[in-house]
């Protein structure tokens, strides 16, 4: 009788692919931690030097302080949200893929890949947005 080696629903994740994924997970976890650190630095800078920053901007731009503060706070909040979400997705994806491989759990592995998928989707949208901004600045 012929031995059936073909998996039922897909194809196996080979050892070398698992090694690459584990290494990628390690590095992406490191990058995610850097993102969290950057987030912390931005928040500390905002808390400690927010007023100074607004007054310096006001000197240069001569705009109403309240409106300027509002604009700066909105921009900083958007930056914080983007860095935070990207770092979180990268961190989650790395952790779940790593756990999935070590525990041989298909659910954890799939959840990790889904996190990476959302990360790349968001990052892709941002890169298209930055390209459009670049094109706009060119003309």
């Amino acid at each position, binding site marked *: *009788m012929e*031995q*059936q*080696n073909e*998996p*039922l*629903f*897909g*194809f*196996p*994740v*080979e050892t*070398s*692919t*698992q090694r*690459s*994924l584990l*290494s*990628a997970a390690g*590095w*992406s976890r*490191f*990058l995610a931690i*850097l993102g969290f650190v950057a987030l912390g630095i931005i928040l500390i800078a905002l808390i400690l030097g927010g007023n100074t920053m607004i007054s310096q901007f006001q000197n240069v731009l001569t705009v109403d302080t309240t409106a300027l503060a509002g604009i700066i706070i909105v921009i900083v909040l958007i930056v914080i949200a983007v860095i935070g979400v990207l770092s979180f997705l990268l961190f989650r994806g790395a952790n779940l893929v790593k756990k*999935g*491989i070590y525990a*041989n*759990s*298909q659910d954890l*592995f*799939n959840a990790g*890949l*889904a996190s*990476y*998928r959302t990360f*790349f*989707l968001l*990052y*892709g949208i941002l*890169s*298209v947005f*930055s*390209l459009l901004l*670049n*094109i706009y*600045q*060119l003309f």
Partner: protein
Amino acid sequence: MENLEQQPANLFELQFDENAKSSVLTITRWAMIMVISSILGYVISIVKYFKEKSKMNSFLEGDDESTYSNVSTIQTTGLISMIVSVAIGLLITYFLYQFASKAKSGMETMSSYDVNIGFANFKNYFLTIGILAIIAIVFGVIGFISMMTMMP
């Protein structure tokens, strides 16, 4: 009997099942979009550099030799830094492109070989960015320390 004993290992082996394949295919699609937008971005930054250079040169026409040579030094430094950043960017984009194309074809044809190459490039992509981040941090710390020591 022997076959039956081997079956559970096959069934519970980590696989690229339908969910995993769908996630990887979406990742590769967006990675390819990132590759295209990165390359276009580099082209735009090169065009921007030469546009600003010609603008600056026409602005400086008739100025004395020393001003012209100072600006020329700044422009050369700018050109070198642009070439270095585009080269590094292209390297990262190359890994992303290799990952996107190989992992996609691997998922579609169920080729473990292509998937292996694809994910090796996925690893290289994060590894390169990680190493660059470490270099940037080291330079940042050195800059910060030298700035603090120069302060009265």
